[in-house]
């Protein structure tokens, strides 16, 4: 009867910890509603890959028989080979985004750039804490507030910490309503948070909406060639949406494709949540650095807005700067809610939405530049 207890007798304490982590992620997804489409599959996958001698991983069975595992296969094909899953997901994301509020109010572009500061602050912090450059760069990209970008960069840079990085990225994206208000209040006064802004959008022609994704791909692709996959697929999705002749494909990208990839991505990422890789002191450090990245993103965007206000007659509500992170649309809604709490009737949602979608583009640029710069500096 020994063969029935082989599994139980092989469990390590680290695997037990991972069962707890998996259950925690599932609980956060269901009970708290934290990014359920990713955290639930990741949580369940964490249990699957940490069962002793798990059949979802490649195994050598008794008698020397090789057995292939489905989760390991999904990872090798969907992420390891060419980062297919995060990139395909970006087609769906691009198809969902309406760049109208940004195109009608181009000043908001700057806040997308400013709110990427946390990425680089986190890279520096990780380096000071002893991580190697490729790991520090991968950890810093948590500050991009974008799951696919975080997964792609950590995979390209061969980081050892993709699991904790993915968990941190998606967890903090869900915690934006808690993290951002805290960070904003650190660097703004009540008077600044009550600033009202007029919204007089310029009309955006269909021609502009079609040329925009093509132009952005060319510009960003020239500057950061490593981001061509990310920006190209994002803008491809957006072009499908805006061209007006591919309505069926646009709907498919926004719904079926996105749901299908999301369904598989979380459980695939769990391959990097095996106990020997996840249950380390570095995981806790990574979670803390990730939190630091999000806080510094927010502060970076807000401080940029305050700096611009030194020169502008019509002041910008500095909270708009915080909306420049890539967590769309949650960040813009959080900023609007804060504005209403400070001053009922203060509507800055469209400005915040413009900054928010700018953050989507800026985070992709950041991902490409981080890969290019880190690989050029790694010895």
């Amino acid at each position, binding site marked *: 009867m020994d063969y029935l207890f082989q599994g139980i007798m092989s469990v390590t304490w680290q695997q037990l910890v991972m069962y707890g982590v998996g259950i925690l992620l599932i609980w956060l997804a269901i009970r708290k509603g934290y990014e359920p489409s990713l955290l639930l599959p990741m949580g369940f996958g964490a249990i699957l890959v940490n069962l002793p001698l798990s059949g979802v991983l490649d195994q050598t069975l008794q008698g020397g028989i090789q057995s292939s595992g489905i989760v390991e296969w999904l990872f090798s094909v969907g992420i390891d080979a060419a980062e297919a899953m995060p990139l395909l997901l970006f087609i769906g994301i691009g198809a969902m985004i309406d760049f109208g509020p940004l*195109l009608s109010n*181009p*000043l908001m*572009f*700057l806040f*997308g*750039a400013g709110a*990427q*500061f946390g*990425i*680089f*602050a986190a*890279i*520096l912090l*990780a*380096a*000071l804490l*002893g*991580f*190697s*450059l490729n790991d*520090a*760069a991968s950890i810093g990209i948590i500050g991009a507030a974008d799951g696919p970008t975080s997964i792609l960069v950590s995979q390209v840079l061969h980081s050892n910490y993709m699991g904790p990085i993915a968990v941190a990225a998606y967890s903090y994206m869900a915690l934006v309503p808690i993290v951002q208000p805290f960070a904003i209040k650190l660097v703004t006064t009540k008077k600044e948070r009550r600033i009202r802004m007029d919204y007089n959008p*310029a009309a*955006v*022609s269909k*021609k*502009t909406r079609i*040329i*925009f994704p093509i*132009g*952005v791909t060319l*510009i*960003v692709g020239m*500057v*950061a060639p490593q981001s061509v996959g990310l920006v190209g697929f994002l803008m491809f999705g957006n072009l499908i949406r805006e061209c007006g002749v591919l309505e069926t494909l646009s709907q498919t990208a926004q719904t079926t494709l996105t749901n299908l990839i999301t369904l598989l991505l979380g459980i695939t990422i769990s391959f990097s949540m095996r106990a020997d890789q996840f249950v380390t002191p570095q995981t806790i450090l990574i979670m803390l650095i990730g939190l630091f990245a999000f806080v510094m993103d927010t502060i970076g965007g807000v401080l940029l807005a305050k700096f611009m206000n030194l020169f502008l007659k019509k002041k910008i509500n500095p909270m708009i700067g915080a909306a420049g992170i890539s967590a769309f649309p949650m960040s813009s809604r959080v900023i609007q809610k804060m504005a209403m709490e400070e001053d009922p009737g203060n509507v800055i949602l469209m400005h915040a939405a413009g900054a928010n979608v*700018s953050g989507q*583009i*800026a985070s992709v*640029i*950041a991902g490409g*530049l*981080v890969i290019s*710069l*880190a690989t050029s*500096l790694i010895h």
Partner: protein
Amino acid sequence: MRTETAAAALEIMWKGMAGIFITIIVIALFVWLISRIGKK
């Protein structure tokens, strides 16, 4: 070793932020240009 990595991280920081801002400004100018063309 740690100082070397930190120095590299600082280089990534200033080059990265500069690169993002320059690219974003170019994109914003591009948007302004195509919106002007669109009006004509």
